[in-house]
């Protein structure tokens, strides 16, 4: 097995997790930046649609670094998908496979299940709920909470911030409710 083939396999959590954690000191040392992604959505609003809303009236050009960071993430996703794509389907728990098969989700290749997330499903009720409503909740919820998984769960917990622990616990509670109690009804939709 050559090096590239080796890199193409999914990386185990004990390799990728610590490397993700290194984002915290890297950004701090690069220029005193707190690791966080969801603020970029706010900066995009401030740059494109401030609409005289006080929450978006600030000098977003001073937060350009964050937009460079997220642009880099898009490029990184592209590089990983082109050069380092996993040739096999995502290996998931058989219990999940069994559950998803009931909803006709059988293709586990690629970064997101193609049967759920594509331009055709977008125009079905299920696709609309998952792609559009879900995205709206992510954008609204992260800003209301003042951060996302990176800003609260990783940066905030690393800096021992109690509000971030509270936020992270609430992320998890919300996720458990959705995945176990609500999502089954959404997945049943055509």
């Amino acid at each position: 097995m050559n090096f590239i083939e080796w890199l193409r396999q999914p990386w185990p959590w004990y390799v990728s997790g610590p490397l993700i954690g290194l984002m915290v000191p890297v950004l701090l040392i690069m220029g005193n930046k707190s690791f966080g992604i969801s603020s970029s959505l706010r900066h995009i609003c401030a740059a494109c649609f401030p609409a005289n809303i006080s929450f978006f009236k600030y000098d977003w050009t001073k937060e350009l670094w964050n937009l460079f960071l997220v642009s880099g993430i898009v490029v990184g996703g592209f590089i990983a998908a082109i050069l380092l794509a996993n040739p096999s389907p995502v290996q998931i728990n058989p219990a999940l496979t069994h559950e998803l098969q009931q909803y006709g989700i059988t293709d586990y290749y690629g970064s997101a299940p193609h049967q759920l997330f594509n331009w055709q499903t977008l125009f079905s009720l299920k696709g609309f709920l998952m792609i559009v409503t879900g995205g709206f909740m992510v954008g609204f919820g992260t800003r209301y909470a003042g951060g996302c998984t990176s800003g609260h769960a990783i940066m905030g917990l690393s800096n021992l911030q109690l509000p971030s622990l509270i936020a992270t616990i609430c992320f998890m509670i919300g996720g458990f409710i959705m995945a176990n109690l609500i999502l089954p009804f959404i997945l049943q939709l055509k």
Partner: protein
Amino acid sequence: MQTEFVSNEIQRDDTDFEVRSLDTSCINISQLKHPWWHNFKYAIAGIFFGVLLVKAEVISWLRIQEMFRLQSFHMYGTIGSAVFVGMISILLIKKFNVKTIYGEPVVFSQKKFNKGQVYGGLIFGLGWAITGACPGPIFALIGSGATVFIITLLSAIAGTWFYGKYRNYLPH
């Protein structure tokens, strides 16, 4: 001087609920000024992070479903070990008074509790489990070719805008 005064005014207006982004920007802008292309180093950090997100499979909707059904340790291990490394790094930065590459002391922002972390956190959690993506992964998914996540991104921007517009009516 005039512009500095104006931006301080905006910050005072604006930081009552959400301390983080503008307070950190206050730290950022109060110090050195760099030409815009200095930001490219953050793009390189972003590329590194984007590759990691894909290869760790944390952008996978399937992995997120496993996490919220307690069917796999993968996500807990990833986030947990990331926090562990972040925590040790911050301890070391504080202990050895590590400076930035520009020689400034590293400054940490304190977060204040408000009810938004509960309500907003729950709403984000619901959205995270539907889309299988938090904001970072949305960008990585678009790059990896799942282009329909452009709609998720636009929708998330709309959600942020909606929050900004109506935040004064929301409990904090």
